[in-house]
């Protein structure tokens, strides 16, 4: 399955998005580890403090991703 992560905020330095092709379901927690491997260990704190979201809501760390999807990674927010 293909999981695409859309980048926002500080993640924009890495482009618009990043895709992974996976052979089995994965939790958000595991996806974060995958992202650390791809973006570098120095991004670990940012990735760990960021939330993942579907099109309509934030999803928890233990949520299971089982099908092709596009998610967003949301760094700590500071609007206003």
């Amino acid at each position, binding site marked *: 399955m293909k999981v695409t992560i859309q980048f926002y905020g500080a993640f924009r330095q890495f482009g618009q998005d990043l895709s992974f092709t996976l052979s089995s379901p994965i939790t958000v927690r595991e996806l974060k580890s995958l992202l650390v491997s791809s973006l570098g260990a120095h991004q670990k704190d940012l990735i760990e403090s960021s939330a993942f979201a579907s099109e309509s*809501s934030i999803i*928890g760390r233990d949520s299971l991703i089982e099908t092709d999807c596009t998610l967003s990674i949301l760094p700590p927010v500071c609007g206003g």
Partner: protein
Amino acid sequence: MDILVGLTSEPIDLCRLVDFVREDGHGAIDVFIGTVRNRHKRNVVTGITYDAHLELAEKSFFDICSEARGLWEGTRYAVFHYKGALPVGGTSLVIAVSSPHRAESFEACRYVIEEIKKRAPIWKQEHYESGQSAWLPGHSLEEEEVCYV
């Protein structure tokens, strides 16, 4: 409808938002305007670029205003946030709240801005006189893990 929210890459129309919340039975309109200031800590700021997840940010504005409406009955809300680059002095956010009497609109407006800062998926990249830029830290939207002992 008592709530109008959105994000825009055009200058925010303050009069439109004020007119939206205006109502004959309301004697008060409170307005918060967020602007880009020229200093942050020891840095001279020349501008800010705002990034946002448009759908989730708009949803967060609506949810926050709905909550506020539940806390302060009868109030009306209009909230717009800018997305894109702004110079110093630029308007990043306008919140307009109306109520029959002034206390509720002051309190509700404060509630809305404080919640937006904690919950809306919006990010600021500050640009400095030195030529450097930095994404500002903020509030994590990640759910806190509960540990049972």
